[in-house]
């Protein structure tokens, strides 16, 4: 699956896009966050407080209990500030 990061999430992780195989045991956004935060410094920092993050699956805003699969495009970002 494709995982995208924006704004300070991207800066903390150090990349805006990566491709991952759906990790074993991960079925929801919340579980993916749990997996990603174990990956190292930047990830731990970016996902330290999931309440500060928002997520999208296949370019639709979504809650963290959303089920995901290996072909999804998933994005993590802070609350939006356009306009």
């Amino acid at each position: 699956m494709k995982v995208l990061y924006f704004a300070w999430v991207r800066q903390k992780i150090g990349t805006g896009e990566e491709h991952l195989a759906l990790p074993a045991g991960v079925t929801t956004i919340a579980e993916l966050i749990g997996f990603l935060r174990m990956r190292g410094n930047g990830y731990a920092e970016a996902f330290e407080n999931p309440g500060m993050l928002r997520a999208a699956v296949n370019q639709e805003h979504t809650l963290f209990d959303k089920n995901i699969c290996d072909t999804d495009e998933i994005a993590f970002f802070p609350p939006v500030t356009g306009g």
Partner: protein
Amino acid sequence: MNSIRIQTEDFDVTAECDALASDRSDIGAVVTFTGCARGDDNLSALTIEHYPGMTEREIAKHISESETRWPILGVTIIHRIGRLAPGDRIVLVAVASGHRAAAFRAAEFLMDYLKTAAPFWKQEERCSGTSWVEAREHDARAAVRWRDEFNNC
């Protein structure tokens, strides 16, 4: 005809209004909102990034919703990305309708959702460093009131 553009270049508000109303005589009102980069607290620049693809989808979705609520005849939304200076134009929402009430309401609705749903992020540069703009509670409330209004109908 609706138009959604995400671009680094500036835009010409008059030309966009003319384009909305050209070659038709059923438009009685064109309402525009232009958002600019405010130079508060010694802001030196603003850098805007977005989520290509999702941005256009979110905006299109809200234009469709506005079309179900009000009799509007055309919408142009332009949002700039990249590095902007204080005073630069950032965003244009232009709505054409037969009468002004629908155009005013739809423009405000679209702007409220641009602020709270379209995936853009602003980073501010000052002499003290750079920081990401935080989302504001009052913007979220402004968007939610449309939902409440809709549910109460």
